[in-house]
């Protein structure tokens, strides 16, 4: 076959628009900052609005107004039947136990699916992944009936126990994917040194799977810190309420809303998430980059 040589098309644009690296840097950062402002503006607006008197909150889209007040924070913190120190404590308790539960159950299950051989492994894994397709609302009523029969209403058990039973298929999947990328030679050499499955799990796999663990912890943290429907259904007593439920009491579509307090407490409730993210940022990005969650 005769080779036809195609004429190489001339570049429409030079490979490098601007040679000056400083200039590219400035342009790039200006664009990024502009984008960031657009994305963050609603959040900034909320923070700014939390410092305004209640009836001036919806006075416009500007960030600054003449009157500045810390009243919303003082009133908001003391609001509700228990006060927000109680609600933050409750939320922390549920969130920490959820993270512990998810980490233990999901990592053990993931190790089994990634490293052990047992009958019906593939079918079971398919069922596990299938549960991810089930909308929460499908299991909502049966779950409520179950927990009601067990007498678990008005306890934290319905929110925490399922996490210890590995019900979060997504995190199991995430960890399975991660553990599969770890070389099996490491397991084998540990085995030669006399380690059993728990030894391999605890000494080899877990230290190496730190990014996946960090990702799981972070996502569990966000999910259970922000969870609204679960606490709404299962926690009816004011002394058990978590932060999102307490925030909801500032709203009353059939009466008066306390938007100032709502925004003030929402700002505070975001702080732990932002803090946790900053601390675990490196781990999180590594986790996302290496587990195929792209």
């Amino acid at each position, binding site marked *: 076959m005769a080779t036809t040589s195609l004429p190489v098309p001339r570049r429409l644009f030079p490979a490098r628009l601007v040679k000056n690296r400083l200039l590219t840097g400035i342009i790039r950062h200006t664009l990024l900052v502009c984008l960031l402002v657009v994305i963050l503006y609603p959040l900034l607006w909320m923070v700014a609005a939390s410092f305004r008197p209640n009836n001036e909150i919806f006075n416009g889209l500007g960030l600054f107004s003449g009157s500045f007040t810390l009243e919303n924070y003082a009133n908001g913190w003391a609001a509700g039947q228990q006060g927000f120190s109680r609600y933050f404590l409750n939320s922390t308790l549920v969130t920490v136990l959820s993270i512990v539960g998810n980490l233990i159950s999901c990592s053990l299950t993931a190790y089994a699916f990634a490293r052990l051989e047992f009958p019906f492994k593939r079918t079971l894994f398919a069922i596990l992944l299938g549960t991810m397709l089930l909308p929460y609302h499908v299991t909502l009523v049966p779950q409520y009936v179950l927990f009601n029969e067990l007498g678990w209403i008005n306890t934290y058990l319905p929110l925490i126990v399922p996490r210890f039973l590995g019900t979060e298929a997504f995190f199991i999947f995430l960890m399975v994917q991660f553990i599969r990328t770890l070389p099996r030679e490491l397991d084998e050499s540990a085995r030669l040194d006399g380690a059993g499955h728990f030894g391999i799990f605890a000494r080899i796999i877990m230290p190496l799977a730190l990014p996946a663990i960090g990702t799981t912890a972070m996502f569990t943290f966000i999910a259970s810190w922000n969870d609204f429907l679960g606490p709404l259904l299962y926690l009816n007593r004011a002394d058990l309420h978590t932060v999102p439920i307490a925030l909801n009491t500032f709203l009353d579509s059939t*009466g008066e809303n306390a938007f100032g307090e709502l925004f003030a407490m929402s700002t505070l409730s975001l702080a732990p998430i932002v803090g946790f993210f900053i601390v675990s940022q490196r781990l999180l990005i590594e986790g996302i980059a290496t587990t195929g969650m792209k």
Partner: protein
Amino acid sequence: MTWTRSALGVLALGTSALLLTGCGASGDGGGGGNGGGANDGTGEITGSIEIAWWGGDARNEKTNAVIDMFVEANEGVEANGQSADFQAYFDRLNVQAASQSLPCAVQLQGRQLNDYTSRDLLLPLDPMIESGAIDVSDIPEAVVDAGRGEDGNLYFLPYGAAYDAVGINTTLAEQAGVELPEEGYTWDDFVTFLEDAAAGLPEGTRAIDSNGGRPNFFIGWTQANGKTLFSEDGKLGFSQDDLVEYWTMWEDLREAGVTETAERTAEEPSGPDQGYFANGQLMSDTIPGNALTPVTAVLEGKGEGHEVTTIAYPSGPEGSGNALYPSGFAIPASCDNVPTAAAFVDFFTNDMEAGLVFASDNGAATNTAVLEAQLADPELSETKKHELELFQEIVANDPPTIVFPPGYQATFEAAFRQAYEQIAFGNQSVEEAAAAFIEQANAGLGG
């Protein structure tokens, strides 16, 4: 090979999902079992009950205070309250209803009532009134009737009656040079009032919101003109011509620039204290009667000196167009402590001290003695006083009672707005949209 296996897994999963939903549905319908025998609510008032209502912090505080008074007045009674905002409250209530674990006193409105009565979830209260466990002698009959279900039985005892009113920004009306419509004004008067005002309003303000898509005014219009909103079998009771006439009226106003534009209305925040009216951009709008106080507060915050008031809905040949939307407590069929629940429902509605503590937080007190006492309170704010007095005026004019069929809240309200938006954005003619809406609403209503 792998593929078939995982497909099997997915199949197994699908079946179990079906089973699960099956369970939920059967739980939903099986509530009638223990509601068969008439329960007259007499018996020993003791033991514990759960009480559920919607509302924010302020209302929770007042309701809890009333519950404490009830517990104090009845030795050996324990009562626990649970509350959430309106939407979240019903999310939880539906799950509790499906699992047969409703609290013993649940707060409802006529708009959702028949979603529950059609599934036999609630006890009729009439036997309890006959036995004297619940007293209704101080409540106007038109108000009590708003608690009746499709079968004519009383299912919840209205304790507070909300109503829709026409909010008017008197400052803007003055600038436009128009007089407020007088009591007993008709829809024609109202339209003329709006058109006159539109001519003289300052830049950036409109006479009224584009209201064709809100059920509130439509309900008022049907009642004033003697149309039926819902038929006996729970379907729509008005004709397509009625709807076309109504929507044409709004379209004429919108095209003449009297109302807010379709675009601005579509993106208006919900909630009377965030809307355009509360921000002084509209001269009038339909607002819940008890929104006068928060709207006044927001306008005060703007610092432009705008003042607002509320007046009754327009009337018509068939009388008042102001339907009442009372809230009240119902007792579920699954309740295991009916005497205590009945005592609480009675206490909350009729006790004078309780009424003064609750202070008509969720619509005006239906008990006339309690209402009088609240009005006599010198500490009552001006706006709150106006809210209660307007309620008295509406009740005096024999307000219509509407029985909302099951599916109303889930179907009617959203479909009505969408259908009108189709017209306002020029996608459909009034006739097309009316026909489409009637078909869609009838499919979801009733049964």
